[in-house]
């Protein structure tokens, strides 16, 4: 297949440059803003907007625009590019891209924000990285053809070696890198037929395994700049509280404490090291103004939510007339669910290093929304984009927590650094207690599902009400919040009358997307309720779902395969049973069967879980398997 590279309406243009000592650099520009970025990087300076760099020492460095937070994306991105480049996997390294939405915008987010989330990293990178790899390869081949005075067509590339078989000449990528950089980039490149893939679809070792096994991998917490201070922030006990006054005397008496400063988010203790900052914060006295703080507790919210669940909500999806069908039915099946607030609790508590100097602001963090964070810093400090530098590090987990359009912990770190003054770098650290108490949770939700069956036992009407805080829109907005409703509005079962209703609540507890977002609670409630309906109909839960998924081939396929692999229907010992669930989220289709033993004392043991997933083309099946293992 051939892909047109120079499509100004979509692709922008291709840029390559030769840089002494750097070798071949290839990058693509996807939006009009890149013109400016390009101008800043011509004239022999190293390019920063490239997807790949080939150095004379024969390393191939793939520039990753997405955050590696455990999901294996550095490995996946490098695999895609290395496939088209025909690199040897052992020569491939990855490096985090700088923040630049023009170059590294996520196409699934409209291309305007550089960020990672929503299971988009592989799919939105697939085309651009294949093209980058193929272009780099073409330029290496052109360089070899020129050096050896042979036709391009006679040159082959495999495992990082460029070969002219007829004359028995060959060369490494590194050896050709500087000459390759002087070649005119091709206007079109031919991408491989997937049947010729040698890396994609194979079990390559993760690029980060070795360093994460010997303690060398660097996370934000490990950054130590000269003169760096460590800050801990005392936050209000109630969400929305403000500092009324504080007494820094005791904190300032702790050896190593350098500054006690008020910022909009609380009062920071800034010290030579973590332990001094911690001891200082422990004795810091702050009086809070709670006049605008959220004062309701879980019990009160639950009461309000439950009352709302009994009333008609905003129609998020309407098929047929479920309300009429339910009002006519004498036999309604109902179930309610309560889901608590959940902290993301990644192993690495939130942290960010900031340095503000005359030339701008530089931060180091496991950054999941690079250009959103960059924009928030630009607005706060009144700086242009090129004076806000983001260094993206490995994140010790995230599960959505580090992707925040408010840049909460990053803004705290910048505010504290500014309040301290001077040019010393400051590392803000959250403790585990801060992490659990500090907000940005998966929201609390109440669901109420109601259904009625037809004479054959199949669902004739289904109503699903979801009550809770929205994630992606404001509670006062009109419309459907995908973050709370996805998985309920996308119900795949063939039911003639369907009413999915939304009640958005206004609560002062900060909330955020949490691993798989709306699907976490909507897949649970809809699948448990589907079991209720199958039981009411006296039908097998797998057969019942099959009957309702006849128009959903991919869901049906994973359901059938999981039933087969789990030996659905095979008798089990007393006390042991099986449950099934099937769901589509973020364009992946998954089904699971769990074998569970309930002991006489009521305790539950999960004996076995079989999961089948169809996530499209598998770049690295072992990484996908690891994600599934971790999610069961």
């Amino acid at each position: 297949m051939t892909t047109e590279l120079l499509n100004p309406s979509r692709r922008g243009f291709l840029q390559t440059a030769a840089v002494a000592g750097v070798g071949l650099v290839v990058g693509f520009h996807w939006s009009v803003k890149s013109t400016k970025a390009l101008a800043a990087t011509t004239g022999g300076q190293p390019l920063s907007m490239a997807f790949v760099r080939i150095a004379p020492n024969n390393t191939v460095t793939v520039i990753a625009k997405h955050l590696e937070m455990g999901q294996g994306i550095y490995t996946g991105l490098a695999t895609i590019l290395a496939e088209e480049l025909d690199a040897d996997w052992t020569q491939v390294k990855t490096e985090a891209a700088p923040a630049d939405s023009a170059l590294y915008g996520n196409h699934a987010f409209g291309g305007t924000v550089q960020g990672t989330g929503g299971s988009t990293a592989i799919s939105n990178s697939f085309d651009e990285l294949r093209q980058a790899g193929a272009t780099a390869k073409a330029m290496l081949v052109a360089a070899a053809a020129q050096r050896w005075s042979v036709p391009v067509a006679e040159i082959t590339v495999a495992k990082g070696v460029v070969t002219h078989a007829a004359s028995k000449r060959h060369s490494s990528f590194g050896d050709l890198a500087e000459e390759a950089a002087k070649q005119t980039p091709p206007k079109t490149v031919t991408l491989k037929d997937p049947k010729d893939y040698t890396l994609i679809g194979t079990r390559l070792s993760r690029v980060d395994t070795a360093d994460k096994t010997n303690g060398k991998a660097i996370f934000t917490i490990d950054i130590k700049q000269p003169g760096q201070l460590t800050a801990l922030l005392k936050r209000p006990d109630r969400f929305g509280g403000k500092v009324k006054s504080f007494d820094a005397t005791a904190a300032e008496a702790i050896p190593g404490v350098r500054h006690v400063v008020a910022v909009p988010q609380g009062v920071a203790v800034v010290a030579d090291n973590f332990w001094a900052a911690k001891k200082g914060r422990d004795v810091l006295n702050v009086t809070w103004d709670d006049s605008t703080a959220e004062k309701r507790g879980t019990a009160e919210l639950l009461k309000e939510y439950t009352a709302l669940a009994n009333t008609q909500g905003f129609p998020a999806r309407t098929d047929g007339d479920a309300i009429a069908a339910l009002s006519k039915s004498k036999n309604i099946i109902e179930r309610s669910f309560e889901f608590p607030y959940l902290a993301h609790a990644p192993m690495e508590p939130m942290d960010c290093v900031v340095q503000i100097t005359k030339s701008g602001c530089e931060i180091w963090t496991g950054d999941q929304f690079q250009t959103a964070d960059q924009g928030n810093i630009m607005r706060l400090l009144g700086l242009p984009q090129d004076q806000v530098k983001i260094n993206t590090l490995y994140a010790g987990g995230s599960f959505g927590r580090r992707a925040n359009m408010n840049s909460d912990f990053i803004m705290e770190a910048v505010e504290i650094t500014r309040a301290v003054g001077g040019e010393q770098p400051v590392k803000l650290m959250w403790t585990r207690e801060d992490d659990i108490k500090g907000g940005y949770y998966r929201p609390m939700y109440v669901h109420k599902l109601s259904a009625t069956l037809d004479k054959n036992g199949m669902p004739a009407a289904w109503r699903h009400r979801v009550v809770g805080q929205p994630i992606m829109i404001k509670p006062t907005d009109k419309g459907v919040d995908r973050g709370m409703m996805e998985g309920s509005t996308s119900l795949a079962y063939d039911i003639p009358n369907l009413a999915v209703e939304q009640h958005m609540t206004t609560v002062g507890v900060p909330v955020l997307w949490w691993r798989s977002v709306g699907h976490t609670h909507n897949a649970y409630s809809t699948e448990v309720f589907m079991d209720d309906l199958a039981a009411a109909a006296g039908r097998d839960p797998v057969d019942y779902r099959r009957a309702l998924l006849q128009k959903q081939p991919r869901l049906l396929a994973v359901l059938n395969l999981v039933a087969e692999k789990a030996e659905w229907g095979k008798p089990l010992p007393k006390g042991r049973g099986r449950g099934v669930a099937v769901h589509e989220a973020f364009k992946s289709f998954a089904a699971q069967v769990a074998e569970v033993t309930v002991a006489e004392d009521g305790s539950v043991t999960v004996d076995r879980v079989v999961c089948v997933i169809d996530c499209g083309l598998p770049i690295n099946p072992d990484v996908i398997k690891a994600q599934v293992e971790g999610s069961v």
Partner: protein
Amino acid sequence: MISFTVNGQDHRFEGDGDTPLLWVIRDSVGLTGTKFGCGAALCGACTVHVDGQPTRACVTPIESIEGQTVTTIEGVAGPVATAVQKAWNDLEVVQCGYCQSGQIMSAIALLSETPKPNDEDINAGMSGNICRCATYVRIRAAIHRASETLEG
């Protein structure tokens, strides 16, 4: 002043005796492979060896290790450590990786005490180490793999 060794090097600490070993390792000695996860001995990310015993550095006051020998992930050596790290690599255990230094330190300690652990031994030896990515399936497999390697 408190004297101890870290990975075979002599160190002296002159700060407060209640400073946790974790922060001495990270902020004074300057080794960052040992991680902070909870500060309350609940997650195991800070696990090091003190005189060979797996120890939660985040709740171990530095004054309690006077004269003792501390080994961190950067200093592990010997056949057990080699077998464990190789198994971790071969089975691609890590995801985010933040807890893995602690996991590996606990696994080395487990296999040093119990060369042929069964699943219950592994549960008992590793139950103090949390992995939020839930790499537990592979951790268990890697410990079995390392045990087999050591058996020859």
